[in-house]
């Protein structure tokens, strides 16, 4: 509501006509600041101030009631010796495997096969239908996906029944309830959720690659694997960066699927920083400690994103120089 008011209230920018051209130029740029005003105010209220607030709270001990007590870096020091904290970060590495590495690699292969083999040697509709099947889980709200999978992997769920049906009943298991299998099971679900995203982005990317490149390579006798390495991979590198970056951030922040599938259990086997922070805030009511966890996670995300963007810029420079 506040937003639309602000929008309507922004006056049509007056065009002052000062004499000197240089001053006029500066005056024109300055007038544009007005347009940034609503966005900037909202940004400060919803992002800036809360972020500073969390940073401040991370230096206090607070249960959410009464006054926060300043403790300096105590929370951070405590984090270093907290096994749950380290366990949650170890699990994040597995989440990166399940949400970035496997989907990007499989997605690249699938997109290339769908585009290059299925799309060209069968009807285009076949490729489009197969792509839709891989993309469907992305349409599903992740919490809904988590709830369905939670039921499938239950002791009396569909997965165990399936094992029975194919004569592998000896493998029956409480997949999410056993600390030994919970993390691999969650990883499997995340691969299923994520795979469609790179497939769709990479297939869109392949459409802008000049088909003559492939034709020339084929005439030269290059086999499919050659063409994949020499043409497909380099041509769609910008998209690969975007996919890897967005998936990495998603993996570092993952919350909904963990909440719906395991709530970090059993015995922290699937805990992740995001869920650990949520639990510390709202279940254990240790607001200062939860804030410290969030700040560490924020720092990691900023550093990782920075590295990615730096690598991307460097690779683009190299391409131009080449």
């Amino acid at each position, binding site marked *: 509501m506040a937003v639309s008011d602000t*929008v309507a209230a922004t006056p049509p920018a007056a065009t002052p006509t000062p004499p000197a051209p240089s001053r006029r130029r500066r005056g024109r740029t300055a007038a544009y600041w007005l347009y940034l005003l609503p*966005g900037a105010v909202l940004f400060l209220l919803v992002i800036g101030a809360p972020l500073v607030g969390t940073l401040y709270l991370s230096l206090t001990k607070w249960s959410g009631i009464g006054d926060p007590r300043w403790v300096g870096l105590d929370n951070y020091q405590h984090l270093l010796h907290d096994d749950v904290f380290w366990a949650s970060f170890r699990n994040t590495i597995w989440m990166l495997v399940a949400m970035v590495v496997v989907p990007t690699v499989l997605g690249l292969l699938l997109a290339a096969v769908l585009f290059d083999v299925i799309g060209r040697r069968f009807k285009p509709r076949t490729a489009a239908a197969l792509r839709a099947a891989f993309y469907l889980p*992305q349409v599903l709200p992740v919490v809904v996906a988590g709830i369905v999978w939670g039921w499938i992997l239950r002791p009396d769920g569909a997965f165990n029944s399936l094992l029975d049906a194919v004569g592998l009943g000896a493998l029956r298991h409480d997949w999410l309830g056993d600390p030994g299998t919970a993390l691999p099971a969650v990883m499997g679900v995340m691969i299923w959720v994520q795979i469609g995203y790179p497939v769709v982005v990479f297939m869109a990317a392949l459409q802008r690659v000049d088909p003559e490149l492939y034709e020339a390579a084929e005439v030269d006798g290059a086999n499919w694997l050659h063409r994949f390495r020499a043409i497909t991979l380099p041509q769609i590198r910008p998209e690969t960066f975007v996919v890897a970056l967005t998936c990495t951030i998603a993996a570092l922040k993952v919350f909904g699927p963990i909440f719906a599938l395991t709530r970090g259990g059993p015995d922290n086997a699937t805990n992740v920083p995001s869920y650990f922070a949520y639990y510390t805030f709202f279940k254990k009511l240790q607001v200062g400690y939860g804030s410290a966890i969030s700040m560490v996670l924020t720092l990691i995300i900023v550093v990782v994103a920075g590295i990615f963007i730096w690598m991307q810029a460097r690779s683009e420079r190299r391409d131009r120089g080449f």
Partner: protein
Amino acid sequence: MAVTLTPSTAPVTPARPVRDRQHRGVSRWVVLALVTLGALVMLVPFAFMLLNAFKSPGDYSSGGPLSWPTEFYTKGLRTYWTEVNFPLKFWNSALIAGSVAVLGVAVSLLNAYALGIGRVRGRLWIVGLFLLANMLPQEALIYPLYYVAKQVGLYNTQLSVIIIFTVIQSAFGTYLLASVMSTFPRSLLEAASLDGAGKWTVLWRVVFPNLRPTLAVLLIFFFIWTWNEFLIPLVMLIDNQTQTIPVALASLQGDRLMDAPTTNAGALISLVPAILFFLIFQRTLARGITAGAEK
């Protein structure tokens, strides 16, 4: 949260059919079989969901998850529908996602106008700052937001979630639109200002009509992303009257109120709007992306 970026749905059409002398044999059929098998595996959970959404609890406990339902049982669906008050949850989700989509695009447009066309000083840093807001873990904001919302009486209102996501989504929108606008043809802008158009008029009569396809795509992304959001609605909306579909489904599951068929029925109903949006919007998405590519 998986960001669905560019689900272009234009049919995959190779520019020219290529005759392949080497791979005409059986190998392409083997590849097709393998990929089809993979696609079927992807669909298996959906099949399970469908199969069990229409079973009675007795049917489920005697036949198990894989059996064919002995009757067409819709009470699970109806139980979920009334127990959760699905129409209300649907309305909450639609109200929140719809408002965020419109307001988020409006804020993005204004921000990007100043950054991409106005080229205000330090715009690269400002764009970077906005982008950061989109990457931040929401845990780094949630407690102060929760606390302040309680103080000012916005806690447990849809408005709180609308304001928060308007800002979070417009952070991404600002980044995207600023880069699109920085390549906006200057000649068009200059022609308009020679005709005496002020900045406000240029924005609405020149920039906005030209960017309409991109804005439509952004609108849809914001809608779907907000629809699927979980953490902030989970914290902010504790009440049956205000909850969104994902939060309602998750809190029911937490209560262990639901038997397996009702769980599946609930998931199935919750899935239908998402699939509908996808089908309705996919043409707009494809058009928007093509428009972006022609630039």
